[in-house]
Every structure is written in C-alpha cells, then in structure tokens.
C-alpha cells in the first residue's frame, strides 16, 4: 500500500546527507590539515552525489546567486562550513553499502559521460556549459533513487522485487508501492535543498528531456549519458533494465549512431583512469 503524499513530503524533509566513511574521512582529514588545495577538495566532494548536492544547496540557500559549480559554492560557503557539512554527514549503513555503491558508480559514470558527450557535441551546442556544471548535472540527476533507497527502503525493495517478474518500468512500480516515483522524490529534494534550476531540471526531466523548457540541451546530454552508461553496465542495484533512448534528444544534440562508438571509447578511457586512481568505481 502506498504512502499518503503528506507523509512522503514530511519524511523527505528529514532526509540527511549520507556518505561513504572512506571518502568522508579523507575529506575531513584533508580539510583539518589545511594543506589540500581547493581543487583537490572539489574533486573529492564531486565524486559524492549527496555531499555535492548538500554543498550546492547550502550555497544557493545563502545567496541570491545561482551556484552550479562546486568550486564557486565552496568558495562562497568557506571551508569551515563545508567541513561542518562533511562532519555532519552520516555513515552509510552496512545494509545499504552495496546498493548505494551502485548509485554512486552510476552517478559518477553519468557525470563523466555528460562531460565527454558535451565535449563531443561542442560545435553543435547552442548553450555552452562549463565542465563542472555538466559534471554536477550528471552526478545529481538520479538523487531520487538514492532517496528512495535510503528513506523509503521497504517500498523501494518491494518495487524492485516486482521488477524481475513484471515488464513494467521501475518508476511505475515505485509509484505504485510508494505513492511517488524517484523523479518526484528527487525533484522534492532539489526543492527542499534549494538546488539551482538547471540541476533541478536535470533531476525532473532526465527521462523526458524535451520537456525541460530552457534547459533542453543540458538535460538531453544527461538523458543520453544516462542511457549510454547504463547500457555499459553502470546500473543502480537491481534496477538493471534499460529504457529507450529518446531519439528527439539525439536529434537535438545532432548525434548519430555512428558517433556513439567513439564517444564510448573516450568515456571508457576516462573511467579507466578514474578507477585506477580512485579505486571507488565498481561496475555491476
């Protein structure tokens, strides 16, 4: 039986930041020591979708400016505030580590692919976004699934259990079990945490990019990136079945099928380096 919307909304207000102990401790130590340059801290935080969302949200809450880059957000907040957010983040419970590792992996893969794709499409893009903004757009697009796993675990598990025997898609099953799907949860969190409009659009419309008025190109990049990385095996938990790629999004980006092999090669090159140096990404 699904939950009433006010219950979902109330529970969403208590969503707290969770983070993997290894990366949280590393960031904590580096800020405490005071020797790491901002770029290193940004690189570490930008591998963690919840922490990145919270830092961006805090910066946007305390300013009239719209922060879409972690560097700007962290400079605005100051390292003391960022340190406070890092220390306040909760360790991911043991039972969720495996599934959330899949979410982190998908988020990072999508962030990288969004940058690779934007770089490939640069000559045809009307609006040019900077690399950091594109990274964040890809990283945060699926916050809703993370929230579904961490705060609505029972309902989300029921939906996943039905996924194998049912040809319905995961969003519909989560909506039936919970009363709201991952897109709605993500959009609500983006509103509560005051994420900027571009990032909120990526969360809300990444499955229907042409509906993202004003942000169609960036959302289309995220949509295509998500589809490609999931095709390559970066999936979150048991939600492993692909949804069709939106052909209109491909057309908007002037992408052809014949471009995809080169794009996948570039993506894998980048991921190999990340895996080698960070050792945090595990493909399912």
């Amino acid at each position, binding site marked *: 039986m699904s939950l009433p919307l006010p219950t979902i909304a109330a529970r969403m207000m208590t969503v707290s930041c969770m983070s993997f102990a290894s990366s949280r401790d590393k960031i904590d130590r580096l800020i405490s020591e005071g020797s790491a340059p901002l770029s290193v801290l940004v690189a570490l935080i930008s591998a963690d979708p919840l922490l990145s969302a919270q830092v961006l949200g805090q910066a946007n809450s305390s300013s009239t400016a719209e922060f879409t880059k972690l560097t700007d957000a962290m400079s605005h907040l100051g390292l003391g505030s960022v340190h406070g957010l890092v220390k306040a983040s909760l360790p991911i419970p043991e039972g969720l580590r495996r599934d959330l590792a899949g979410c982190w992996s998908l988020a990072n893969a999508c962030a990288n692919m969004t940058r690779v794709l934007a770089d490939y499409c640069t000559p045809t893009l009307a609006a040019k976004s900077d690399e950091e903004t594109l990274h964040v757009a890809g990283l945060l697009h699926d916050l809703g699934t993370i929230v579904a796993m961490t705060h609505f675990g029972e309902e989300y598990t029921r939906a996943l259990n039905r996924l194998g025997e049912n040809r319905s898609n995961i969003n519909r099953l989560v909506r039936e079990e919970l009363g709201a799907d991952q897109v709605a949860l993500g959009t609500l969190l983006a509103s509560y945490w005051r994420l900027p409009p571009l990032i909120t659009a990526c969360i809300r419309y990444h499955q229907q990019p042409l509906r993202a008025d004003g942000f169609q190109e960036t959302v289309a990049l995220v949509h295509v990136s998500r589809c490609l990385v999931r095709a390559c095996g970066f999936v979150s938990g048991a939600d492993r079945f*692909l949804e069709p790629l939106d052909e209109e999004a*491909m057309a908007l980006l002037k992408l052809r099928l014949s471009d995809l*092999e080169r794009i*996948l090669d570039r993506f*894998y090159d980048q991921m190999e*380096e990340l895996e080698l140096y960070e050792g945090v990404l595990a493909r399912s």
Partner: protein
Amino acid sequence: MPPTDEQRILITQAATGMVLARPVVMPNKVSLCARGTVLSDNLITKLMARGIKRIHVQGHPLPGPSQEAYLDSIKKLHERFSRVRHVPLMVSLQYIVERVMVKRL
C-alpha cells in the same frame, strides 16, 4: 573472446621489461618509440612526461578478465537490453556497446 597477442594498458601500469606491440605516437603523429622497444623505468617516466596515457604491449602481462567473466558480462548486457529489443535504435546501441566491450578486452 577474440584472440590477441597484445594488451592495451595504462602507462601507469607499465613495467620495465615489457615490450611495445605498437609504436607510441603523439596526437600530432610524431612517433616517440618504435614497435618492439623494451620499456625501462626511465623510458616510462619520459612517456608519462610527454602526456602518453596508454600503450600497447606484447602478450598479456596484466591479468585480464577470464572467459567466464567475459561471458557473464555479455549475458548481463543482453539482459539489460531485453526489454527494448523492439526499438531499432536500442538494438543498434547494444551492438555498438558489445563491439566496444570486445575491443577493449
């Protein structure tokens, strides 16, 4: 799995004694090392300094995925695409992803 007598590795995984299976070429087509060159620590450092990230070496000095792992990844790939087989674009995408996976083994 296609048989190959060379392995593509990151320069950071290279070790003294490995033998280049292909020449190392800069993006501007300038050749830095010939095929058959035996790597040394000094040469590896120089290549890294020139921004080289990957090289092809003879044989398979680093453990690659086993036949079972390869077959498992192909099986998972087919499962991921199992619900979009009616979409021609996705059928083509599956073929492309599989080709890239095989190429990068």
